[in-house]
Every structure is written in structure tokens, then in C-alpha cells.
């Protein structure tokens, strides 16, 4: 269990704008993902936990130990924190063999035990054949496994991973995810993982913290966040929604309904508590929640006509991009049946509509 509550200010510099990190979160067993765009302060947060950077204020607790406390003047050196760190570029010592890299991490242990532990990890991470090689002679996947093994060999209380899948191709990514799940099951070490890849967050994360400009803007399970983004900001960061500007023209709490004006068309949605008549808001709807059909006379309820501008055939679905920036995702079979439509209408579900 790690509890972080830290602040750090960076004054503006000629080459960089001012930046302030101000985050608070708890993470227990399992994988917690720090998700956000570049420059959101994700790696900086990891560096503060590992002790490479000292925050200005706040406190970091790992299990029952205080790693950092500005008020009490506690700031343990990185050596004493026992947080395994898997660096973005692996940071395997280039002048040491893989075996020496692993042994370096447990230098304090007696020789025989060290030997045994190193062999155990080499076997566990399928590195037996390359144990005597230096990092530049290893493949990307081997380096990745070695850096995880090195971070784990000293039995850390927390494992920090900084964009571990960066630069790996799809099969290696899949392998890495599988490995991390096994590591999670076997070593029971809580994992804090930094990424800006949404699929990765869903693949691994039990908890997810969305970061932007040095703040945590939403936290929860990846599914819950994707279902209910808390703000337009979050919805934009996730990048999986249609965000359409609408005006609320009718609100009816008794019947749990509302009317939204999108351009010249009206949509019917559920009642939106907390919003007022006349509010200009963002309609947030997933591309796969929309359906399309051929235009047949005037559009029906919750249907709006639109011009098809682009078709992207993806491996598992087809993305249709319409005028007005509306994206719709349909299964390939559905697209096949409709690809000769001259004019299209998009149907919005009444229930799945959310405004932000």
C-alpha cells in the first residue's frame, strides 16, 4: 500500500513554462496505472516515489514506513526505499553481463545465496541462454525481461514501471502484459505503471489515475472511467468519445427526459441532474454506441442525417467518419450490408447519452 500526497513547483525557465505537480492518491495491491499525456507529471511522480527527486511538500508512505515527509524533514535516499524501478530505456548497465546486472542488485547478500537467487531469476525470466551476454547483445524483449528481473530480485515492496511497452512491437507487448500478470500473481508486489496508451491501461490496470498538467483529474477502474468520464478533459484524454457541442433545450425531471439541440436537430436523452435549461454542454457518446442506416424519408426520433466523409476499415470494426466530426464504429458485417447507402442517418441511443 502506497500513499502519496506531494507538491512540487518548477518556476518558469527560458526553455520551459512553469509546472507544478500536486497529486494525492493511494494504491494497494494490484496494478495501478498512471495514465496521461506527455508532460502530465507521471514520470516525475515515479521519480519522487523512488527518491530521485525531492518534492517541496507533502508525504509519501509505503506500507507503514515514511519515505518522505516534508514537515518532519524525512527524505530517505533511493537506496533505502526498496522500490523496484523499471526504466523507460531499461538502464541495464552496459558494461556488465546480464548475470552481473542481476547480482549487482543483491550485492549485500552472502555469495551462495546471491548465486542461487540470480540463477532462480534467470530461469524464471527465461534468460538462461543469454545470461553471459551484455545488454547490447540482447533483443528488446530480453532486455525488458532482464530489467524487470533486476528490479524484482531484491524483493521490493513496490514496483515502478515507466512506459514499459514503449518501443516494443505488438507480439512483444502481449508477452510483456502476460509476464506482468504472472509477476503480479507470483510476487504480490503492488505495481505502479506509467503509460499514455489506453489499451495498456485496460490490459493491466485494476485502478487507473488520469493525470493532466500535474494533477490527478479522475481515478477509478479503467472500465468505470471509460463509462463515466468525469469531465470533458478526461473524455478528450481518453480519446475514445464523440464530443459534440449541444444546447439543452428542455429538461423534464418527472419523465426523466431532456431534449438536446445539435445543430438544427433535436435529440431526446435522459434527465441530466445538475444542468440548467439553455446550458451549452458537450454530448459525450462512444462511437460504438451509435448506429447508422440508410436515410428513408425524414429522419425519425433521435436520428440525424449526415454525410459520410471517410471510411477506415480496422481489424475488428469499421470506423465511419461523418460530417460534423461524428465517428461511428460498426462491425464489418454491418458495414458490408450498408456500404451502398446513398444518404445516411445516425441514430443516437436515448439511454446512453451523457453530457459533460
Amino acid at each position, binding site marked *: 500500500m502506497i500513499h502519496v500526497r506531494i507538491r512540487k513547483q518548477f518556476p518558469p525557465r527560458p526553455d520551459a513554462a512553469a509546472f507544478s505537480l500536486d497529486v494525492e492518491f493511494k494504491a494497494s495491491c494490484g496494478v495501478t496505472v498512471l495514465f496521461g499525456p506527455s508532460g502530465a507529471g507521471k514520470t516525475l511522480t515515479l521519480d519522487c516515489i523512488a*527518491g530521485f527527486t525531492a518534492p517541496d511538500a507533502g508525504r509519501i508512505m509505503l506500507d507503514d514506513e515514511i519515505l518522505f515527509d516534508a514537515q518532519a524533514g524525512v527524505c530517505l535516499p533511493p*537506496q533505502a526505499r526498496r522500490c523496484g524501478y523499471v*526504466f523507460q530505456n531499461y*538502464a541495464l548497465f552496459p*558494461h556488465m553481463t546480464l548475470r552481473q546486472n542481476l547480482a549487482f542488485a543483491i550485492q549485500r547478500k552472502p555469495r551462495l545465496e546471491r548465486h542461487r537467487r540470480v540463477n532462480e531469476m534467470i530461469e524464471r525470466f527465461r534468460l538462461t541462454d543469454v545470461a553471459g551476454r551484455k545488454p547490447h547483445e540482447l533483443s528488446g524483449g530480453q532486455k525488458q525481461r532482464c530489467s524487470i528481473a533486476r528490479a524484482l530480485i531484491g524483493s521490493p515492496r513496490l514496483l515502478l514501471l515507466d512506459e514499459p511497452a514503449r518501443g516494443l512491437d505488438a507480439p512483444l507487448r502481449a508477452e510483456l502484459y502476460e509476464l506482468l500478470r504472472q509477476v503480479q500473481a507470483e510476487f504480490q508486489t503492488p505495481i505502479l505503471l506509467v503509460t499514455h496508451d489506453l489499451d495498456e491501461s485496460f490490459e493491466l490496470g485494476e485502478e487507473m489515475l488520469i493525470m493532466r498538467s500535474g494533477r490527478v483529474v479522475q481515478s477509478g477502474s479503467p472500465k468505470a472511467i471509460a463509462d463515466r468520464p468525469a469531465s470533458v478533459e478526461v473524455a478528450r484524454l481518453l480519446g475514445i468519445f464523440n464530443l459534440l457541442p449541444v444546447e439543452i433545450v428542455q429538461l423534464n425531471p418527472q419523465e426523466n427526459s431532456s431534449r438536446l439541440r445539435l445543430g438544427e436537430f433535436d435529440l431526446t436523452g435522459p434527465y441530466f441532474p445538475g444542468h440548467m435549461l439553455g446550458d451549452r454542454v458537450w454530448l459525450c457518446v462512444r462511437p460504438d454506441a451509435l448506429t447508422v442506416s440508410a436515410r428513408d424519408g425524414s429522419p425519425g426520433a433521435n436520428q440525424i442525417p449526415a454525410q459520410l466523409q471517410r471510411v477506415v476499415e480496422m481489424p475488428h470494426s469499421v470506423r465511419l467518419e461523418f460530417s460534423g466530426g461524428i465517428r461511428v464504429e460498426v462491425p464489418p458485417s454491418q458495414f458490408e450490408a450498408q456500404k451502398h447507402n446513398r444518404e445516411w442517418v445516425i441514430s443516437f441511443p436515448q439511454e446512453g447519452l451523457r453530457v459533460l
Partner: protein
Amino acid sequence: MQIDWFPLWLSLRVAGIATLLSLLLGLWLAYLLANRKFRGKEILNSSVTLPLVLPPTVLGYYLLVLLGRESPLGQLYEWVFGTPLVFTWQAAVVAAMLHATPLVVISARAALESVDHCYERAARNLGASEWRVFWRVSLPLARRSILAVMVLAFARSLGDFGITIMIAGNIPNRTQTVAVAIYDAVEAGNGDVARMLVLVISVLAVSILYVANRLLARQPA
């Protein structure tokens, strides 16, 4: 032509010892300047590079005052080793060291600072003490540059004239290094001896620089 080779051997010996000592001292200072934050860091930085710009005679004068028989340090040396330091070949070592150390500090600092920080962070993260981080990670990763620095330090130690003549003097067969011997030979009109020594020392210097450049050029990625 009768050439006395003693100055050459003395120079090589003095330069060898001075290289080792200036490497030790220089690495320590370079480490402090590259890794630590402390008060007076800039003052230390400037005073370390001072010997590069001061006239050698001024440096020699400082050393004479600092290590002479009347000074506390000189007396301490005399008490420990039983003989005074000034005007011995050991004084030539001190002179060569003073000549070479600034170069070592500047180059070694650059070499240490060019080591990617992530390796040092990784080492600390894995529980290595600062001492271990330096000896097992920073230094090996900078080893080629440090070796080049060592070679250059040797060349520079070999070439000192001004400081040596001030503090070690020009005593044939005792403190006369090559640089001093050449000066002596020219003064005495021994053109052949001077030419020979100049030739030898030039060839030596060129070879040393060649080795140093090779070391620096083949820097692995």
C-alpha cells in the same frame, strides 16, 4: 656525442608518479564538482583551474612558500621523511602534479557528467552506496575518457618546466628533468644534446597524443 640519458629516465619516473597522484586527486575533485552540491563549489572550480592560467613561475613561487623548509608543511615533510622536500626529485613530482591536475579535473568532470544519469539512478535504486555507484557504474562507463585523461596527464607531467625549475631546481643527476636539461644544454651551447632530447621528447609526445585521440575517438555508443 656524449648524451646523458638521466634526465629522460627521471622525467619518465616523475611523470609516471605524478600521473597516478594527479589522477587520484583529480578524480576526487572531479567527482565532487560533478555530483555534489556544496557551498564554495564555484570557488573550488575556479581555484582548480587557476594553475592553467597563472605563469609557472608564480605557481613555483607559491609552492616554494608553501613547501619550503621554513613553512609548516615543509617542516612536516622533513619530520616525516627526514629530508627537506624542495630541490629533490620528489619536488619535481609535486610540480608535475600541479601542472597536470587541472587538466585531469576538467576532463574527468566532463567525462563523469557525460555518463547517462539513468545508470546512476538505477544503481542507487538497486541499493548501491554512492561509493559503489562511483566505482562500479560511473567510472567504468567513463573508462575510455578517463584513460585518455590519464594519458594526457602523463604528457603534461612530462612537459613541465617552469614550476619544476622553481621548486626542484636544476641539479644534474638529481633533479634535472628533460625540459630543464634541454634548457641547460642550449644555454651551455650543447646543440647536439639539445636536438637529441628535443627529438626524443617530441616523438614521445606525438605518440601519446595519438593514443589519447584513439581512445577518445572510439567511444562506444
